[in-house]
């Protein structure tokens, strides 16, 4: 009976090691602190009504970014532990600080790098991107909300449930997977990993992956069906294009991930033999399947970011983007090609020279559309009048690091070279250059760029530039040594090595780089805090602080909850730029200053007739549903069948009651819209 209720969970499995206990204490202290604070300021109801149950993509976007940032710190802590271990972890002779085998056990070290990879990809980069897409895409296409507002809320809460699940072992104990971030078989099979670690991995990613899939469907439908009148596909801003491509990738690959994890689950829970070593299982099938998801997944991370850069380059060079059509074709080409290269992650599998050559050549092909994009951006800036604000700094940082890392990638696309550097730190350095120098820099750029739109005031420029330079220096300092170490034969996921190899100085340089990055992150946090304190000085009253080009700048900052009082009519690309230009030609033939632009916007709004707006109601159902799914996942980890049943039945009940709820929208009357618009203006 106890087995039925609690499953494998016993008193002994509760945390008793210093790192889990420390984590538990930290969590409890933080949660208590937040709870006390909320009670003090009496904000519980406000939090629940205005934020947690919200179906407004702007609020959901902000919540995504907050959670992603917290996870960024959590994943960053893992980094420091990994680097410290590798720096002092030489065996035989006492290393720095007198440690002989580093300060972590091999098993603990493995759990840390596994968690680091999963958190940074699934919960940080994906979280940030979904946040930005939620915030900006509806505004860019001139829509008031998403196609399925409830599903958006659900998607966020499933993501959050995944975040909690991956950290659950701090509270309930056990361990995390010690298998590497993809939990490759047969290592992740019951035979080698009978504990709860891999199960935590499976259910955390399964739950958050479901959220990602739901979000992907939602955005594809939104972008294809809900654009403002006149906005044909070829008039969409580049960020919307890139998001559409990214989301098409999401809906094409996340089913593969989900099913692959289900097959692993069937192996582990029902004794099937998909990837086992015995009874005819085929472990290499796991590698193929997981990378059929995994390679397009890295493009899910980078393609929306390409869109961010396109917007920023065009805005700060004050020119329309160079070669719009070729950019669209290039993004589409990358999307398609990303499906045909997965095998380059395991050239060493032994598929033979023909297969390896095919995938090697396909991999090199991807460099062409990527190069097209980089050339388009550079030509956009050519003869433009570049305004040097911090978002464009991140772009310059990106172009240099991304091209650098891309070249390393091209090297590894050659199977003979790959055989030399396969699974070495060279590879680790390569993909970090792409994901940090590419995706993360772009996320920071987009965050700085759109911050005034979302919050109504700009971020502090000076601290932003300091943060950028610190990041860039720290980044190269920590990853260039890894390229060299990889060439010297240092493998990845290595917790200890012989001091006679002479690697320790390079690892030390790398650790110093990591410390500089920590300073950079500190500067970013400081930047946000200082900007909030100085918000009065940096307030954006125009709604258009950067002299932008696309529709998100056509509404006030922050936008009203219905985004646009009147849905704009689009006549061309760079819709808002054209609107400004035609107004200027009418009123100020010699061009207008920023305060005059405010006047323009108001003038444009003063004559319009408002109409009733239908908006989605807030609903707690997303929280309830993902709460039950969370319970289901957690109970599955521990084989606590009673709670599995409760979670499942609860989830089904939520789905049924939501689908038959016909009362999900309300109408904001024209009079109310007018009242809010007048109040905002005064």
């Amino acid at each position, binding site marked *: 009976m106890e087995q039925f209720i609690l499953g494998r969970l016993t008193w002994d499995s509760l945390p008793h090691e210093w790192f889990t206990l420390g984590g538990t204490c930290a969590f409890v202290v933080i949660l208590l602190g937040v709870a006390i604070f909320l009670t003090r300021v009496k904000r519980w109801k406000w939090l629940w009504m205005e934020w947690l149950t919200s179906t407004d993509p702007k609020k959901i976007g902000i919540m995504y970014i907050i959670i992603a940032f917290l996870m960024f710190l959590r994943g960053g802590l893992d980094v420091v532990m990994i680097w410290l271990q590798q720096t002092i972890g030489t065996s035989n002779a006492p290393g720095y600080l007198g440690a002989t085998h580093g300060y972590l056990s091999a098993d603990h070290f493995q759990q840390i790098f596994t968690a680091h990879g999963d958190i940074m990809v699934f919960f940080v980069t994906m979280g940030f991107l979904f946040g930005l897409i939620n915030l900006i895409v509806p505004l860019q296409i001139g829509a008031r909300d998403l*196609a*399925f507002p409830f599903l958006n809320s659900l998607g966020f809460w499933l993501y959050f449930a995944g975040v909690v699940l991956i950290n659950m072992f701090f509270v309930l104990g056990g361990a995390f997977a010690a298998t590497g971030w993809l939990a490759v078989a047969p290592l992740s099979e019951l035979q080698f990993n009978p504990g709860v670690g891999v199960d935590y991995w499976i259910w955390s990613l399964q739950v958050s992956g479901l959220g990602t*899939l739901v979000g992907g*469907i*939602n955005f*594809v*439908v939104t972008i*294809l*069906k*809900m654009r403002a009148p006149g906005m044909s596909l070829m008039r969409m801003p580049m960020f919307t294009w890139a998001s559409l491509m990214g989301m098409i990738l999401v*809906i*094409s690959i*996340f*089913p*593969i991930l*989900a*099913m*692959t994890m289900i*097959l692993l689950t*069937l*192996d582990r829970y*029902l*004794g*099937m*033999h*998909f990837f*086992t070593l*015995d*009874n*005819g*299982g*085929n472990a290499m*099938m796991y590698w193929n*399947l997981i990378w059929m998801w995994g390679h397009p997944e890295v493009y899910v991370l980078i393609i929306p970011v390409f869109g961010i850069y396109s917007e920023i380059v065009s805005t700060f060079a004050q020119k329309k983007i160079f070669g719009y059509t070729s950019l669209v074709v290039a993004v589409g080409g990358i999307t398609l090609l990303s499906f045909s290269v997965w095998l380059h992650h395991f050239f060493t599998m032994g598929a033979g020279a023909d297969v390896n050559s095919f995938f090697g050549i396909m991999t090199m092909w991807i460099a062409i559309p990527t190069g097209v994009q980089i050339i388009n951006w550079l030509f956009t800036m050519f003869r433009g009048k570049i305004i040097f604000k911090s978002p464009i700094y991140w772009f310059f940082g990106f172009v240099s690091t991304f091209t650098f890392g891309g070249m390393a990638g091209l090297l590894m696309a050659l199977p003979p070279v790959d055989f030399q550097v396969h699974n070495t730190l060279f590879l680790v350095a390569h993909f970090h250059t792409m994901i940090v120098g590419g995706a993360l820099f772009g996320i920071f750029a987009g965050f700085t760029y759109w911050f005034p739109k979302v919050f109504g005031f700009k971020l502090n420029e000076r601290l932003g530039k300091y943060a950028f330079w610190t990041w860039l220096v720290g980044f190269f300092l920590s990853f260039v040594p890894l390229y060299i170490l990889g060439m010297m034969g240092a493998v990845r996921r290595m917790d200890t090595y012989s001091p006679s190899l002479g690697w320790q100085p390079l690892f030390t340089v790398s650790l110093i780089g990591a410390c500089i990055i920590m300073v950079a992150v500190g500067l970013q946090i400081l930047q946000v805090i200082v900007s909030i304190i100085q918000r009065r000085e940096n307030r954006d009253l125009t709604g258009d602080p950067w002299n932008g080009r696309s529709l998100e700048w056509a509404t006030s900052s922050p936008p009203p909850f219905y985004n646009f009082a009147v849905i704009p009519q689009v006549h061309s690309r760079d819709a808002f730029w054209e609107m400004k230009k035609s107004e200027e030609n009418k009123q100020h033939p010699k061009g207008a200053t920023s305060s005059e632009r405010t006047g323009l916007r108001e003038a444009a709004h003063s004559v319009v007739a408002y109409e*009733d707006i*239908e908006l989605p109601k807030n609903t707690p159902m997303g929280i309830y549903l993902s709460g039950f799914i969370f319970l289901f996942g957690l109970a599955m980890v521990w084989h606590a069948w009673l709670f599995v049943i409760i979670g499942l039945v609860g989830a089904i009940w939520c789905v*049924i009651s939501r*689908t*038959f709820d*016909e009362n999900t929208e309300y109408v904001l009357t024209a009079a109310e819209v007018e009242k809010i618009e007048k109040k905002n203006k005064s």
Partner: protein
Amino acid sequence: MSKIIKHHTNHQEAITKDKTIFGFWVYLMTDLLMFGVLFASYAVLHGNIFNGPSGKEIFDLPFALTETIILLTSSFTAGLAIWAMRNNDKNQVLLWFGVTFLLGLSFLILELTEFHKLVTEGNSWQKSAFLSSYFSLVATHGLHITAGLFWMLITLIKVKSKGLTEGLSRKLTLISLFWHFLDIVWIFIFTIVYLMGAI
């Protein structure tokens, strides 16, 4: 004035319907990819019988053909139900979806009988990679059928009490889409698993 409002609402409903059906199509495509993975793993593993039986030894073609005919018929009756829905004929909708439900249920019972037979003969999913992939593929389809039946039943109960409202008609359309989709997947299962397995 009321006419304008009415027009406005109809327009809104048309947009909602359009979005919902398109979104459901996108979902179906993602589901198809999940089946794609199962088909792929079946294709890889179907020869790995590892001392267990091969497909030829366990598949009963006439039995699978019966299942197929029942499912295809249920798809046809679902089509009749949607036709009746377009004619706003509530009783016909209930009748034909009722028939669809019963056919779906009998398909499910047949499938479970087949599974039961295999397991009692000692050929469970634990025996070999081939059987693992066979059970997973067919049972995933079966689970979808179960979910579809459940969904159909609840919607029909609502239709009985509330009539063919806009929202419920939309749901019936989605259910029939889902049902036809499962039919197509089954045709592939029948061809790839049963027919090709029996040769």
